[in-house]
Structures are given as structure tokens and as C-alpha cells.
């Protein structure tokens, strides 16, 4: 049975492998470009405050070379890979057998439908997980210096690093299989698989990750020596004050400027110091000094960079649990509902 699963799967597997190898080769060829730029801009081995400027210099330099472009290609690949695996590996797995009628031949051999499907699922899931695993392993290593300069825990990057892409690939494959089994048409199953996988990719960062992330909240004195934005909110008499939070590598969920009582700062502001007519990004020095006297704090809700791996494993676990649940459903379906 394993031989049959392999025999029917190998062309799809080789096609995917060929495409992924091109991408992996591109990463390998630009590996030294990334590490070289990180070193030359002083980002590698930087200390404390110097890191901010070095990081800016590093990402700035990256945007002019292939690696900077490849960084975004890498994210795109990690989002598109599960969709393609679901469409081209998962959806036809059962649908094509139903469409061509070959299920009647294969189910007449001395092998139960349950075992046939379980072997096919296992081979597909393992292949999907290994393909995604190889790519994410290389990409996570390749992008490590860039991720340190940006943030690898922010939602978009997070889904393309570590072990989460493996779970996405496995889940997308099983979604494809079950869509094909229920719809019994390859093309329809492919379309539904694409929509379903994209829906999962949107819903997970929006719903699941915030629930798993356990963000922390900190209130610290507002640092007004750096760039900040101040101005009246449009069509109200309120003011807004936004300063950058200085938490390296964290995923900032929300940040607000609060007064010493803990309430959100909405003014009023001494308009003789802070002219409402000035551009919001360019406050006057008097305004800056006046604001410093107000005992303002910054309240930040964030997921620290150190939560990366715990959160990776939690999301991985949740997606794999979903994959196992859908696999169980598909095994039930092929026995009960296909008749």
C-alpha cells in the first residue's frame, strides 16, 4: 500500500521538490550577502542603544540588494506553499479516484478503505511536513539577522518561521483531501481548498494567535527624546500623542499614552506651547519640554521576543490538533458517507 501511495504521488512530489530547490538555492546563494551586510553595518555584535541605529542601517542596506527582495519572497513562499500543497497534493487525492472511477477498482482489492486512506494521508502529510520543514529550517536560519533587526514574532513574520509552517502544510493537505472527498470533483475541490486554506491563514493570526499569545502589559515613563507624534484628533477637541515603544523584537499589540492616573491621555494641551497648526510629526521644543512636565507614561501591550518559541509550539500544537481532527473526520467519511 505504501508502494502504491508513493507511486501515485511521486510526480507531484518531484514537481514540488524542483520548485522548492530553486528557492532554497536562491537562499543559499544570498546567505553570505545577509550575514555580510549585518557585519558591515555593525549590527552583528552590537550593544544596547547602538543596535537601533545599526538595525536601521542594516535594513536600509538590505533594501538595495537581492536578499532584501528575497526576504519578502520568502514570506510569500511560506504563505503560498500550504495553499499549493492543499490544491495539488490534497484535493486530487480522493477526488480523482472518485472522478475516474478507479476507487471501485482499488476498493475491490483486499485492503480496507480506512487503511487505504490512512496510508495515503500519512504519506501526504509526512511529505508536506517535510517539504515545509526543510524550507522553514533554511529560511529561518537565513533570515535570522533580519528578523533580529525587525521582529520575528509580529504576526506576518511569525507564520513564516519556526515550526508553524510545518503545521500549516499538514493542515492544508488534509483540508484538500477532505474537500475532494466531500465534493467528489477535483477542480471544485481545488477551488474550495484554496479558499479554505486562505481563510485559515487569515483567521489564525486574527483569532487563534491573540488567544494563545498571552501578551504582557507594561507601563513605563514616556520617552519624549525620540521622535513622537502629537496633534489634535480630527473633528474632536481631543489630542493624541504617539511615541514609539522601545521593546526590541517584540510584537506590539497596542500602545497608548496614559496620564499619571492611568487614564488615556487626550489633552488638554497648552496651545501656547504646542501649536495645533504644526505638523503632527514635528512638535516644537517648547511643546516637548511642556509634555515632559506632565508625568506621562506609556502603556504597552506586547508579546515579548522571548515568547517566540513557546508561542510557536502552542500554535503548532493547535494546528496539528486540527489536522488530526480533520483526518479522523475523513476516515469516518470514507467509510460512512462515501457509500
Amino acid at each position, binding site marked *: 500500500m505504501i508502494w*502504491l501511495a508513493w507511486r501515485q504521488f511521486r510526480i507531484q512530489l518531484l514537481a514540488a521538490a524542483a520548485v522548492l530547490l530553486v528557492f532554497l538555492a536562491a537562499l543559499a546563494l544570498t546567505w553570505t550577502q545577509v550575514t555580510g551586510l549585518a557585519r558591515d553595518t555593525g549590527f552583528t555584535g552590537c550593544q544596547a542603544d547602538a543596535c537601533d541605529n545599526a538595525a536601521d542601517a542594516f535594513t536600509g542596506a538590505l533594501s538595495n540588494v537581492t536578499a532584501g527582495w528575497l526576504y519578502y519572497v520568502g514570506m510569500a513562499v511560506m504563505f503560498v506553499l500550504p495553499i499549493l500543497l492543499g490544491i495539488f497534493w490534497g484535493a486530487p487525492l480522493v477526488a480523482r479516484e472518485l472522478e*475516474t472511477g*478507479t476507487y*471501485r*477498482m482499488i476498493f475491490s482489492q483486499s*485492503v*480496507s478503505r480506512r487503511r487505504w486512506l490512512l496510508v495515503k494521508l500519512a504519506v501526504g502529510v509526512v511529505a508536506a511536513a517535510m517539504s515545509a520543514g526543510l524550507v522553514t529550517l533554511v529560511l529561518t536560519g537565513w533570515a535570522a539577522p533580519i528578523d533580529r533587526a525587525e521582529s520575528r514574532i509580529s504576526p506576518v513574520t511569525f507564520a513564516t518561521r519556526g515550526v508553524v509552517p510545518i503545521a500549516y502544510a499538514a493542515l492544508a493537505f488534509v483540508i484538500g483531501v477532505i474537500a475532494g472527498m466531500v465534493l467528489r470533483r477535483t477542480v471544485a475541490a481545488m477551488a474550495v481548498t484554496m479558499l479554505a486554506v486562505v481563510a485559515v491563514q487569515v483567521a489564525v493570526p486574527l483569532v487563534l494567535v491573540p488567544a494563545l499569545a498571552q501578551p504582557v502589559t507594561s507601563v513605563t515613563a514616556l520617552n519624549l527624546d525620540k521622535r513622537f507624534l502629537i496633534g489634535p484628533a480630527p473633528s474632536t477637541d481631543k489630542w493624541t500623542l504617539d511615541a514609539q515603544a522601545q521593546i526590541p523584537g517584540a510584537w506590539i499589540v497596542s500602545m497608548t499614552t496614559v496620564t499619571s492616573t492611568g487614564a488615556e491621555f487626550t489633552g488638554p494641551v497648552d496651545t501656547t506651547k504646542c501649536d495645533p497648526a504644526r505638523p503632527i510629526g514635528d512638535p516644537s521644543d517648547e511643546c516637548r519640554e511642556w509634555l515632559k512636565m506632565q508625568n506621562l507614561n506609556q502603556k504597552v501591550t506586547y508579546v515579548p521576543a522571548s515568547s517566540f518559541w513557546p508561542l510557536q509550539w502552542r500554535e503548532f500544537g493547535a494546528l496539528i490538533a486540527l489536522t488530526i481532527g480533520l483526518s479522523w473526520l475523513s476516515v469516518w467519511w470514507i467509510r460512512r458517507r462515501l*457509500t
Partner: protein
Amino acid sequence: MTDALSAEGLTKKYGGRTALSDCTLSVPAGRVVGLVGPNGAGKSTLLQLACGLLDPTAGRIEVLGTTPMSGTRQVGFVAQDTPVYAALTVAEHLRIGARLNPSWDAALAERRIAQVGLDPSQKAGKLSGGQRAQLALTVAAAKRPDLLLLDEPVAALDPLARRGFLQGLMELTAEQGISVIMSSHLVADLERVCDYLIVLVASRVRVAGDVDELLATHHRLVGPRRDPAELGAGRAMVEQSHTDVQSTLVVRSTAPIDDPSWRVDRLNLEDIVLAYMSGAATAAPQRVLEGRR
């Protein structure tokens, strides 16, 4: 001896459409059974119920004494249009059979492939309809089932391929002594190989019985016009047609017809089946007969 197939009140519905209704049947083992009926009569449904690809909506079916389940060793099945994997070669199909069937008879499979002249390295998608049917039959037969089910295996074949296929089937049954149930909408295909016949019309079994017995007990009566109710005991009407002066009846009768006012003709198998098919529209259910009592 356990019946090859027995069914009681077997019904299968797809949504609102009834494909097989209230089918009660018992087919002895060790026979080559022909299942004949017009297209859409429920032949495929009955065979797929028998090999466990479908579950009945109501009623009971037993195959070789157990409830059928797909993936059993005892039953082989050649589906309609003889599906095979187009991208796989003939040899790979035999390998599938060998891998998935503990009872696989590799010698039989290879001998048959050579006999019918299939090239093992050829892709199954490139085979002609006749060759594909032979491949599907080989895979099903080399599993060495106790019961082989064939769903319209020759429907798409030209007369020569049809003869070759039936020839191969006869050789197999002769050397293995297995039970075969084979469906067709053409009696001519079945006549040559079958010794037992089931006629299925509009999702109902009209008649089932030994071919010799069917031939011996069916008569066409031609005589002056009269009421068919006068036929007498032990006789059942299959089909009737009347003109102003003359009645033509097809009856089933165990007793000889000795009324001199009838001209009695023997019927061949095709006549009998056609009589049941055309009589189905008019015949009342109680006139439906069963072969074995």
C-alpha cells in the same frame, strides 16, 4: 451450501431516486450468473451493494454468508467501464494487485497477461477498451476470489474483443470453479457463458432461475382470442398481446401445455428476457416469479 448472494427486501435510494427496490433474491454458489436488464434497471447498484461499495438504504444483503464490505479477500469486482489507472503500466497494475492482496496468484496474472497479448510496460491509459477490460479482469481474477462480480464488462467492447473477454472468463471459471455474477443489457453476451439468469427491470427482479429450467418452462402460446385468466393453475403470465381474433401469450408453466387450441412455441433465452422486459410494465407484482422455491 452457502448462497453466493442472498438479498431480502434490498432497497437502495440515491436521494429521492430509487435505484433498487425491495429486491429479494438468492443466487446459488458455484454458478455463472447473468444479471440482465435494460439500462438503469439497477444492475450496477445491485453489484456495488454486493461488493460493499454501496450500503443498502433498507433490507439485507449477504454475500458468501456475510454482510459485504469492500476490501474483503473473498469478492473480486470488475466495475463498469473497467476503470484502471491511466498513468500506471500494466505491470504496475499487477504489482498493485500483488501488494494489496495476500491471496494474489502472480503466475495466473502473468500467464493471463501474456495470453491476451498485453505489453507489461504499456501505460494502462493507452490500452484499447478490450485490453483494459482484460487487464481489469486479470487483476480481479488473480486475487483468487470465491465470487467474481463483473459489471457490464463487455458493454464497450467490439464483437471480437467481446468474444475474447468472454472466452477468458470461461477459462477462468472452468479452472478455478468460482462463482461469477456478471451483468449486461444484452442477453447474447450472457447466453454463451451463464447457467443462471436474473432479469432485473425498473429496479425490480422479474425472474431468476437456472437457464435450462427457464428454457424448459417458458412457452409462447398463440391461439384464438381469450381471457388470460383462463390459463389455469401452475401457469403464470409473463407477457400478453391481443388482436381482435388472436391472443399471443408468453407463459411460465411447469406443467406441459396440452390444450390443443394453443399453438405452443419454444422460446430462446433472448425471447424470454424480452418478454419479461416488455411485460414488466403490465405485469402485477404477484406474477413475478422466482426461480428457486
